[in-house]
């Protein structure tokens, strides 16, 4: 199976979304870096093989997997039941909160203020669909407009340029953007009331052995303290708990 293939090839190929800082992005040499990239490197090291990071957009994750261009997608992908009908997920290796990102001078303080604002998010992300679903149920006649962006970074750009009043992003990204002055004066906005976003690694649905291996790898990352290390390096602050209280799996 895939596990044997990777071991035999001596190379692990990971799909990583590279416009999703700090999980995946390009450094000033345009080389891929980020927490997902380090995860990939750790996994390869554990298997004793080389690693290769294949940069993908949100939309390319699945074709890359199915075509066998990559062995695993470490691409901050939310583990929805709908998606799991198409691909196989590991246990979560990361969890995000969703948060609004605002311009420094915006007068949005509470989540409800977004009802009448122009809000954006990256297309195809979980928080996009969560936000749209929330909007439909809670603010059925909201006057604010919604805009999707092709990538996370574009949404930062858009809010800094004032194309929208707020964008919904992950808490990890938000913290990062606000600390950088690249996009001008931005500030953290209210946290979304809808749930946390657990993301897993993905591979082909039928690769049980490979999924087992990946699950154990994630488990060991946390047990060994490597996860906390990476979290401190890329995000900072208190690492979140990846377990769900009151559930076996």
């Amino acid at each position, binding site marked *: 199976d895939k596990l044997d293939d990777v071991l035999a090839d001596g190379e692990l190929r990971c799909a990583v979304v590279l416009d999703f800082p700090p999980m995946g992005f390009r450094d000033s040499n345009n080389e891929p870096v980020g927490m997902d990239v380090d995860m990939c490197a750790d996994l390869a090291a554990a298997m004793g093989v080389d690693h290769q990071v294949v940069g993908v957009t*949100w*939309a390319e*994750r*699945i*074709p890359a997997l*199915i075509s066998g261009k990559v062995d695993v997608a470490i691409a901050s992908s939310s583990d*929805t039941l*709908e*998606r799991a*009908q*198409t*691909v196989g997920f590991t246990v979560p290796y990361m969890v995000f909160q969703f948060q609004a990102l605002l311009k420094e001078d915006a007068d949005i303080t509470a989540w409800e203020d977004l009802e009448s604002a*122009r809000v*954006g998010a990256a*297309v*195809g*992300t979980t928080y*996009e*669909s969560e936000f749209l679903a929330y909007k439909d149920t809670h603010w059925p006649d909201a006057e604010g*407009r919604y*805009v*999707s*962006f*092709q990538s996370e970074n574009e949404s930062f*750009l*858009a809010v800094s*340029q*004032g*194309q929208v009043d707020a964008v919904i992003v992950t808490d990890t990204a938000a913290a990062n953007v606000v600390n950088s002055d690249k996009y001008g004066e931005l500030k953290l906005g209210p946290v979304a009331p809808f749930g946390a976003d657990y993301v897993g690694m993905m591979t*082909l649905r*039928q690769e049980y052995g490979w999924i087992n291996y990946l699950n154990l790898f994630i488990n060991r990352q946390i047990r060994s303290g490597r996860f906390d290390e990476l979290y401190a390096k890329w995000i900072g602050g208190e690492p979140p708990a990846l377990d769900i209280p009151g559930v076996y799996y």
Partner: protein
Amino acid sequence: MDYQFLWRPVIQSLPQMLGGASVTLQVSVLSMAIGMVLALILCFAKMSSFAGLRFVANIWIEIARNTPALFQLYFFKFGLGAVGILIDSYITVVMALAFNTAGYMAETFRGGYAAIPNTQLRSARSLGMTAFQAQVHVMFPQLLRAVYHPMTNQFIWVILMSSLGMLVGLRELSGETQFLYSKTFRAFEYFAATAIIYYLIAKLVLGLMTLIGNKVFGLNRGGVA
């Protein structure tokens, strides 16, 4: 091939995709209408004796014709944003496609104009028509006929290129498809259905335009030559 095709989700979301298709049509018709008006203005600007006008028209036409449509779209999206002009993706797409259409059709108008034998204008003037009357009653109907076919092609092109809306977050047919796809990860099925819908739209519009063309210009009303 291990992959199992699963068409049920596609069929279930067909209404949503058709909703996207109607946005595609709206955007295309709007871009086309604005683009044609701009094209006519550009065409006259380029033929005008005022150097400033000619310069602007030339710059516009050359940029529209010599850079990718996607570049033009990014330009309207990021470029205008960077100088603080706020537009949403719908208007961005319409602006970019209209900009492009204007550049291309301006040249078509000019070519169509040049293709009308000059005895036509002379005949009209020799009958005592004013320059304006000659343009309106003799030249323009022939111009319209001459550019009708290229205009139809441009219209189809605009419909197909409006799929770039997906890349700036517009939920037209492609954007809607991408949204649906990201929920289920069924890329092939969704985009195959989308391809079929585009094909049908293109054929439908072509048929309609041909029908209108035959009705308005008549098969038996040949042009000169």
